[in-house]
């Protein structure tokens, strides 16, 4: 056990792969056993991640493993894994979603069950590795490794257009990362290694224009993953074609890696360039928020609607990051978790509906509430979370992001914050309009309709999947500190290192007789001033 206590992160990252490889060598006939094995393994990883990672208060870094690994054309590559405030909850989100998704889509996959479970576990290794890696080459390996299992999940178990969607997903993401790889190798050459801190220092000594190019190379790779408008078009296809499990993980974790890439690497390594491009990023974010919502509004396929809603929600994440304020960045951190929970839950629910009705077209439904009251209740709660109703998780994230953006030290902050609020309205439009058409209204009695094929409400397994998600939705909404307290200090330090501009506040005009100028944000002194302002009335 001594190896385990000194290498907990290695174990968390690679245990799923070991299990996955084991499952791959099991005969096909044992698919059901493989599935159970995979689920139990993923559940164990989740339990271990909770017990190892939570409840540690040892400064900024919670757990870390670092050792020299090999040299690549003379450049040392480190085997470096770390869990700290920036990735702790994303890691736990990943280990949580994997077993939950397996359980939620238990019967959705009909053929090659074992292979699917194995791929799922390989994917988990890729995601956890990418989240924890502290060496950029190591990170790059995981980043690309994630693509392969997802490619097969979409391409083999997907819908009718799965080949197109899988190829598009693969080429889009790969295309973005190739440019990034070039930048990575260039910078590593200058820095003498792939350590992000050293690379950042090396970059800061380069001419500003070079920093900008390097930042763009990083940013494009991450922005495709987010996805940021206009690099988002792989997402709807991938989501619609992917099996439910793929969609959940894609939305729940893979997209987060884009935002995470910004906050872990792109922004701290090139702070000056990042702030230089804050405005364009914010513009694209606002466009993504509004555009994603408007396009989601006119979709006819529920899953595609949810996919476009992701574009809108992830736009909020990027806007928060671009604000370069603690409130906005913390909002982005929370919003990433929110989106993982809420959109993951939505995809699971859509999957449950599809498994029964074999259609996802909104027009095929109507009156589902009559037939599936429990399902409807869950769907409503998740919908409310998605539209950011207060006391659900969605509200806190959006509220922070909007306020952070409004306070941003950049001059565009106020306007963009106001524009972005429209996303909150449009979110309610597309979600509740869809909800109304699918769940409310008279029962759709058409023989071919989706409603007609709904014979059973959620079973115990499905309820067991949804309950934790609902609990989390409320927990994150009522006590968000649980999930973002740990990132507060790193985020503040990051912004300070980046020399982010001071928040902009309004200066209010004090009453005439007041001696001290009322500084913005400063509390008035206790007690009554000599002559408080008497606003004129009845003039």
């Amino acid at each position, binding site marked *: 056990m001594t190896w385990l206590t000194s290498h907990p992160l290695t174990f968390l990252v690679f245990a799923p792969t070991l299990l996955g490889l084991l499952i791959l060598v099991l005969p096909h006939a044992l698919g059901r056993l493989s599935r159970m094995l995979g689920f139990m393994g993923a559940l164990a990883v989740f339990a271990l991640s909770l017990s190892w990672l939570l409840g540690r208060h040892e400064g900024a870094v919670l757990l870390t493993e670092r050792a020299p690994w090999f040299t690549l054309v003379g450049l040392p590559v480190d085997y470096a894994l770390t869990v700290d405030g920036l990735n702790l909850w994303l890691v736990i989100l990943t280990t949580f979603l994997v077993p939950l998704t397996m359980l939620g889509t238990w019967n959705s996959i009909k053929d090659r069950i074992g292979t699917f479970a194995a791929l799922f576990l390989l994917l988990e290794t890729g995601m956890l590795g990418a989240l924890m890696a502290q060496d950029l080459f190591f990170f790059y390996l995981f980043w690309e490794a994630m693509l392969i299992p997802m490619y097969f999940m979409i391409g083999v178990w997907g819908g009718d257009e799965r080949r197109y969607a899988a190829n*598009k997903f693969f*080429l889009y993401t790969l295309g973005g990362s190739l440019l990034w790889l070039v930048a990575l190798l260039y910078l590593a050459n200058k820095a003498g290694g792939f350590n992000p801190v050293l690379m950042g220092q090396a970059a800061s000594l380069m001419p500003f224009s070079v920093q900008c190019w390097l930042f763009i190379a990083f940013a494009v790779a991450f922005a495709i993953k987010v996805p940021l408008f*206009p690099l988002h*078009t*792989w997402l709807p296809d991938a989501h619609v074609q992917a099996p439910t499990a793929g969609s959940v993980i894609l939305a729940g974790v893979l997209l987060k890696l884009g935002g995470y890439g910004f906050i872990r690497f792109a922004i701290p390594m090139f702070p000056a360039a990042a702030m230089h491009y804050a405005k364009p990023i914010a513009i694209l974010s606002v466009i993504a928020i509004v*555009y994603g919502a*408007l*396009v989601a509004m*006119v*979709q006819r396929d529920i899953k595609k609607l949810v996919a476009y809603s992701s574009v809108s929600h992830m736009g909020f994440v990027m806007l928060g990051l671009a604000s370069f*304020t*603690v*409130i906005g960045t913390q*909002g982005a951190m929370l919003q990433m978790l929110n989106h993982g929970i809420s959109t993951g839950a939505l995809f699971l629910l859509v999957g449950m509906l599809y498994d029964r009705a074999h259609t996802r077209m909104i027009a095929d439904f109507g*009156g589902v509430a009559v037939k599936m009251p429990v399902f409807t209740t869950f769907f409503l709660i998740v919908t*409310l979370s998605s539209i950011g*109703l*207060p*006391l659900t998780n969605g*509200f806190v994230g959006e*509220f*922070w992001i909007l*306020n*952070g953006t*409004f*306070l941003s030290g950049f001059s565009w902050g*106020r306007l963009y*914050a*106001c524009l972005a*609020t429209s996303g*909150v*309205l449009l979110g*309610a*439009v597309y979600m*509740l309009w869809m909800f*109304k058409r699918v769940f*409310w*209204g008279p*029962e759709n009695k058409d023989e071919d309709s989706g409603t007609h094929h709904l014979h059973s409400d959620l079973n115990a397994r499905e309820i067991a999947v949804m309950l934790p998600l609902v609990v989390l939705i409320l927990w994150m909404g009522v006590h968000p*500190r649980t999930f973002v307290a740990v990132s*507060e200090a790193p985020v*503040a330090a990051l912004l300070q290192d980046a020399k982010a501009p001071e928040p*902009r*506040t*309004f200066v*209010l*005009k*004090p009453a005439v007789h007041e001696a001290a100028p009322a500084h*913005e*944000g*400063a*509390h*008035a002194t206790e007690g009554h*001033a000599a002559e*408080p*302002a008497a*606003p*004129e*009335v*009845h003039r």
Partner: protein
Amino acid sequence: MNKYYWLIPILPLLGCLFNGLLGKRAGKGAVTVVGLGVVLGSFLLALSAFLAMKGMVDHRLVLNYGEWMATGSLSVPFGLAIDPLSGTMMLVITGIGFLIHLYSVGYMHEDEGYARFFCYLNLFVFFMLTLVLGSSLVLMFVGWEGVGLCSYLLIGYFYETDFAPDAGLKAFLTNRVGDLGVAIGMMVLFAAFGTLTVSDILTQAGHLAPEVGFGVLTFATLMLFFGATGKSAQLPLYLWLPDAMAGPTPVSALIHAATMVTSGIYMICRLAPVFSLAPISMNVVAWVGGATALFAATIGLVQRDIKKVLAYSTVSQLGYMFLGLGASGFAAGFFHVFTHAWFKALLFLGAGSVIHAMHHEQDLFKMGGLRNKTKITFITMFAGTIAIMGFPGTSGFFSKDEILYLAYLKSPALWVIGVLGACCTSFYMWRLMALTFWGEPRDHHAYDQAHESPISMTLPLMVLAAGSLLWGFWGVPEAFGGHFAVGEFLKPALTFGQTHAAHGHHEGPAILLAVISTTLGLGFGFFGWTTFKNGPAAEVAFAAKHPFVHNLLLNKYYVDEGVELYLLRPIRWFGNLLWKLFDVILIDGVGVNLPGALTRVFGDFTALFQTGRVRNYALSMALGAALLLYVYLK
């Protein structure tokens, strides 16, 4: 007792959870006990808290229960603030709320979704209490959006119908439009004051000079007011409230008359010191309120659905409240909230009783003569009607008179608008009363089966009727020898330690104005009654003679149609355009698939050379070598 006050909002939440999770299994009896019990318990606790608050020196009781969402410079505690303003609202919500819960026991007893109904109703009380008691604007916003949700769920309560889902959706989305204003207003206030805790904002506001022209606070308050037009159904966002009548009638009484729709007025009163710093905003509030008061009253003149009449009446009365606020009569506006809660809840519940008696008939033209069949309903509704028309001595008289008087001081034009609206009010109310209770029954079948409602429904009517008649004496204006006690009572909350009075010196012909407006109101009431006491013939004749005017009013000035045609349809069209143009054609077509296709074509072209025949390769090798040789030797 202090340590139990957190239960004031939480009790109804627990009731909601019980009714939602276990209600169906536990049976109607348990649902009734829990659903009503939690609201009654909440009311009793609220009463105790109210008295405790009155005992405090500064009439303010603040209770904090930890931090909610702190990050960076933002801090939002879970805190309850009880002062005369929120304390009064708290009592209205739980008190009148309890009566309406009680009424619902009778009204909904046959409904299958009984548990679901009480689950939503309890949830509403929770959110409404959060709205008024929350110590910060963010908590207020929690309630603000939360009551919107409950309103949505309750309007869409009959979800298997065609119309209720649409009405629910419309209500939620229209409110969300307004909520954007609230969200932006909060952001501005946070950037200006560095806090969103109400008491901190108000303390700072006390040290500020009023804005000359359009400043930060003007922008913030206008944004907040825009939110108020959504929640409180004012121009231009009033559209949802008439449709909201698709919900069960107790809901209309509780949410869409007595409590939720007054949130906008409450918010402005809450922030009265800030609004007072922005004269432009105050003007906007007054004029929008006045315009809505008249506009909605004219539509109410010709509606045939008994609940629709009351709905437009509510929009109109809310307009009066804003008119009062805008005229710096924060206490007057809020006083009207209170009196309106009595008589409008009464009128709605009375209408519900009529509908109940007539087996779900809501068309006024099909009623008639019911005063013999439903005596209690008739007498109590009579009390409500004279209260709303402002019969001297009733609650509506005192509160409306104070508003009209302040409106006159601000601008005589506003007074004229207000009086015209009051005339319409009297007319449509007496039209409603006459068509319902007088004349010959026009639907004999329904009339024969009509019956008075059970005691659980009539008891609330009687209590509310007493309140409608008597509550006005809490605020007898100075012109009538009173001293506007309600203003004095609310003063600590409205001025927040500032020395200026919420409403200043009185001058002008107060008595004369009151006599004119009251006489006109009574006259139009009588006119309405004589016209319709024998049936709707006169209106049919009027419609035949002036079809344009009648249709215009009946179709609510065609605003809904205009919004659909010029706003909603273009937005959907635009969404489609974006999708098709950008995603499908530009980005995917030109940006992604075209390079893909080009690559394939290029690949196919180069594949031509990959023939697999050795002699071709040998030939190209020889040619290449020759070329290299040539270059090298040259």
